[in-house]
């Protein structure tokens, strides 16, 4: 697949995404800058599109980094407890400070996402049985344990509804002023690209990396920090989007290999395309209402994940 084909697809889908929704807006309406349509376009449609692009690119890159560093094709923010840990962090910030400020939520969510992912990497180091299919199962169990802790304390603190908004990934509530945190993931993605060679070398394993003179631990930590930053910004603005970081990097890996400097641009654009398609489907099937994007992503994503599991056992090893 050529990069420009993907970019073209992303542009067309972006255009479609801007002009569907409960209120009918035509490109011609935008000529009148003061019309209600133009206002809606600026306050709701454009932010929504930007949020989709940033979240799609971010989650795909986060998944790519995790797969490279863990040397397992099935590790991603969804299958390593990262997103669940971020959620737990948000809950604890709410419990500790009854009126948690946005900044406190961000910090707690980041610290938990980072620590939770490191803990999972430690568990991975320790288990002897390393069937590539087995690893994400452990990760999902681990994520569910974190999630159940979150649910327990949320129940005790009467916060179930509050926490459920983080659980459900959706672009429905994205309006201008409520998504800007996502821009934090832009420098994270740029850093990921600048460090692409280091991540590829680290992905060849600790011995290999040391042979080439790479400070393995430092690269590992940097990678996990980037993953935690991206996951935090996405969970706090959009909510949990499952499978994205799992499916997209794997598709790119199948047709382009694992040289991150080459694959990162494709991973970014394919992530955007995938999420745009899922969001558009969610907005069209029950029009004028909509299905949250995490549902469409989960349906399409889990299907693709299953195909990968059955077809790709040999490839993943």
């Amino acid at each position, binding site marked *: 697949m050529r990069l420009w084909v993907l970019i073209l697809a992303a542009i067309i889908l972006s255009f479609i995404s801007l002009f569907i929704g409960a209120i009918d807006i035509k490109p011609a309406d935008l000529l009148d800058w003061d019309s209600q349509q133009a206002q809606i376009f600026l306050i709701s449609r454009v932010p929504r599109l930007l949020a989709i692009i940033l979240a799609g690119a971010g989650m795909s890159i986060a998944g790519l980094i995790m797969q490279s560093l863990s*040397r397992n094709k099935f590790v991603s923010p969804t299958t390593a407890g990262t997103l669940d840990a971020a959620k737990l962090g948000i809950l604890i910030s709410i419990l500790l400070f009854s009126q948690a400020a946005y900044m406190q939520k961000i910090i707690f969510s980041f610290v938990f996402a980072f620590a939770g992912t490191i803990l999972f990497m430690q568990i991975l180091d320790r288990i002897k049985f390393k069937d590539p299919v087995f690893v994400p199962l452990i990760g999902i169990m681990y994520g569910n344990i974190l999630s159940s802790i979150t649910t327990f304390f949320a129940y005790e603190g009467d916060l179930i509804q509050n926490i459920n908004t983080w659980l459900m990934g959706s672009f429905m509530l994205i309006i201008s002023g409520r998504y800007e945190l996502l821009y934090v993931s832009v420098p994270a993605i740029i850093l990921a690209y600048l460090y*692409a*060679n*280091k991540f*590829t*070398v680290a*992905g*060849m*394993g600790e*011995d*290999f990396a*040391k*042979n*080439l*003179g*790479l*400070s393995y631990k430092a690269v590992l930590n940097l990678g996990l920090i980037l993953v935690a930053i991206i996951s935090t910004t996405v969970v706090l603005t959009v909510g949990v989007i499952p499978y994205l970081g799992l499916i997209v990097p794997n598709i790119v*890996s199948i047709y382009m*290999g*694992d*040289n991150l*400097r080459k694959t990162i641009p494709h991973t970014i654009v394919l992530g955007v395309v995938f999420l745009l398609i899922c969001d558009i489907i969610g907005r069209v099937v029950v029009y004028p209402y909509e299905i949250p994007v995490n549902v469409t992503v989960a349906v399409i994503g889990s299907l693709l994940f299953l195909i990968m599991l059955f077809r790709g056992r040999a*490839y*993943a*090893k």
Partner: protein
Amino acid sequence: MIEIKGLTKKYGNKPVVSDVSLTIRPHAITSFIGPNGAGKSTLLSMVSRLIDADTGEVLLDNKNVKSWKSSELAKRVSILKQSNFLNVRLTVRELVSFGRYPYSKGRLTPEDEQYVEKAIEYMNLKEIEDKYLDQLSGGQRQRAFIAMVIAQDTDYILLDEPLNNLDMKHSVQIMKILRQLVDELGKTVVIVLHDINFASVYSDYIVALKNGKVVKNGPTDEIINSEALREIYDMNIPVQEQNGCRICVYFNSHT
């Protein structure tokens, strides 16, 4: 020059390598041999700073390898471990290019490209340079890894059982290439070998380990004889000369 001084490594209370001292002679192939669990791989890993020694030190040009900057050391010493388990989808050329990482951090200069090109030609990989590693046979993959090490252009090349899982033809091929690296390019090769006959035919020096200690250390001729081998392996191993090679016939030996 690499000097090993009093290296000891314990796992729990059990010493795997205890108080090993030796000097690696330059421009030669030195083979580490010995029974299972003798500490050969552990010793090699300590020499190449992959694992830390409990006590003792490894000196490269009279300077402890731990005090070398790791990117500088990577230009002098390379190590290849059981690389067949690598599950990264890279093409042969990409892999070999990463051999230049210590020099260019992945942004290849024209000079780097030359090294890569030469390494690929040296290992006869030109035809398959755009294939992914997971599409190759075991022997081709091993050659690709050695090409990477050649591109890394280090004086010292350390290899941990590079013949594992290779058939006879490929094993001979790899050993001949290592011989060329020493004879033509003046490299120093240190290799852990399981098959004593490969050690006998291809190496200049042999270091025999047993229970973590050096039991024999010297030119190949002095080690490949029945008395020395009995001491190393606790086996009666007749040695026969064939086409100028000394072959150990251990297959039906009485212990």
